[in-house]
């Protein structure tokens, strides 16, 4: 009975990590990471540089192999398509540097790239592209623009739209505000708060995660050092100072 309940719990989680470790050739990046993410949760992943946040994202997205432990995304290994969805990929990741993520020569083609890779019908792809452009607040006039000619905020929106168009169950955002001005950051906060999807946001911007997340994970030296409600974790001055972080203005 206990095993059955445990099995149901594991399968109901959008993301489940059990003792996950990963090493690069000269250093250990992750060491025995364990946590679960339930559907609809909004999680902040914070930690100093080199803590292992991006590595954790890459493993979860299924692009980094060779890890130890168990990673289950919606009940199966990362990088696979859902068995129950209509060509839906479980995890969508928006990388820190949008310049590397947008590689097509028009905004439309870039957003359509993921859905087309899922083998969706062109009509559906059209609808999805238009729908996500509206969701992220992109004007349709930008469809034929060259992504590199857009502003940082617009590029960030196109990158997000390209991922949302694949309708993932969980969104991973790596430093989403790194190239945004205050207005762009404010718009991003509003946009993220309007998305109902499960989110894990990795950022050094404590104010951004305080405004968008309800739970926080602190990673340092490849280890998970804190996990709890965002106010308890980010509001803990000693914990924040010990791990090279700052208490966000909202919790001071």
């Amino acid at each position, binding site marked *: 009975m206990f095993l059955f309940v445990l099995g149901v719990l594991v399968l109901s989680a959008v993301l489940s990590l059990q003792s996950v470790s990963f090493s690069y050739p000269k250093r250990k990046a992750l060491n025995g990471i364990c946590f679960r993410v339930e559907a609809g949760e909004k999680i902040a992943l914070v930690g100093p540089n080199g803590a292992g946040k991006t590595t954790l994202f890459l493993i979860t997205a299924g692009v980094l192999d060779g890890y130890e432990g168990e990673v289950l995304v919606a009940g199966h290994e990362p990088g696979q398509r859902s068995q129950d969805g209509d060509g839906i*990929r479980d995890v969508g990741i928006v990388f820190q*540097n949008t310049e590397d993520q947008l*590689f*097509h*020569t028009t905004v439309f083609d870039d957003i359509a*790239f993921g859905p*087309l*890779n899922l083998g969706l019908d062109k009509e559906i792809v059209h609808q999805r592209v238009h729908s996500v452009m509206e969701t992220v607040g992109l004007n349709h006039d930008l469809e034929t623009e060259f992504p*590199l000619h857009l502003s940082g905020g617009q590029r960030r929106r196109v990158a997000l739209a390209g991922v949302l168009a*694949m309708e993932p169950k969980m969104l991973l955002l790596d430093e989403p505000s790194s190239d945004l001005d205050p207005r762009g950051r404010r718009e991003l906060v509003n946009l993220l708060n309007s998305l109902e999807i499960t989110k894990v946001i990795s950022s050094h911007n404590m104010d951004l995660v305080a405004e968008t997340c309800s739970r926080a994970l602190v990673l340092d030296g490849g280890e998970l050092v804190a996990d709890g409600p965002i106010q308890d974790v980010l509001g803990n001055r000693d914990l924040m100072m010990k791990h090279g972080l700052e208490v966000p203005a909202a919790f001071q």
Partner: protein
Amino acid sequence: MHETWIPGETFLHRWDARCKLGATACLCLTPTAMSDRVPLAVLAVAALGLLLWFHLPWRKLFRYLSEIHLFLIPCFLILPFSTPGDPLFHIGPFAGSLEGFKFALTLYLRAVIIATFAMGAILTTPIDVLVQAAERLYVPRVLAQICLLTYRFLFAFRADLQRIRIALRTRGFREAAGMHTYRTLAHTTGSLLIRALDRTERVTRAMRCRGYHGTLPTMRSFKLNNQDLAATGICVVFSCFFLFWEFWF
């Protein structure tokens, strides 16, 4: 750095990209089979006239064409002195031959014709459409993808180079003949290549995360109409006319 494509409503813009590419290939191959300078000169004028007739911006056209002179002028500097024949002029002890000058002129005309016709395709079609059209014309998929991604990341590469140059200047670096400059340029080149390699890995990851499995799917569908076919036929006839001129007169 800006995109080369110029939006417009001319027939050249509307022409099916596959036909345009095929016709351009045919027109560009024609001068390579010609060596008589008279029909070559007529073809060069006709090529330029054709593009101007379609209202392509002549300033941009001539600016691009002037850039190829960087590679063509050395022909006139080297070939007259390296090709045996009747002396045409002397510079000190060196004699420039008439045959060498004629050969350089032939190469020059061929290059100008090829560049002009290629401009007609490049300036009127977005690069991604051209690459997709090339793929439909059985250009290997990997080659087409390499072209598309190279074009896309040239902009990022250029931006990297500009950042490095600014960083060098702000730290007092001025280019001059000497080991310090050569060493700095070598380090800069190395740094750019390493950045490009890192970027390649990041781009690959980003593409894989969005389901990339070796193909770049597209929403674009090409449709042929009678005008497209007629224009392609006219270009083939045009090419044949000049080849006929070359070989029978």
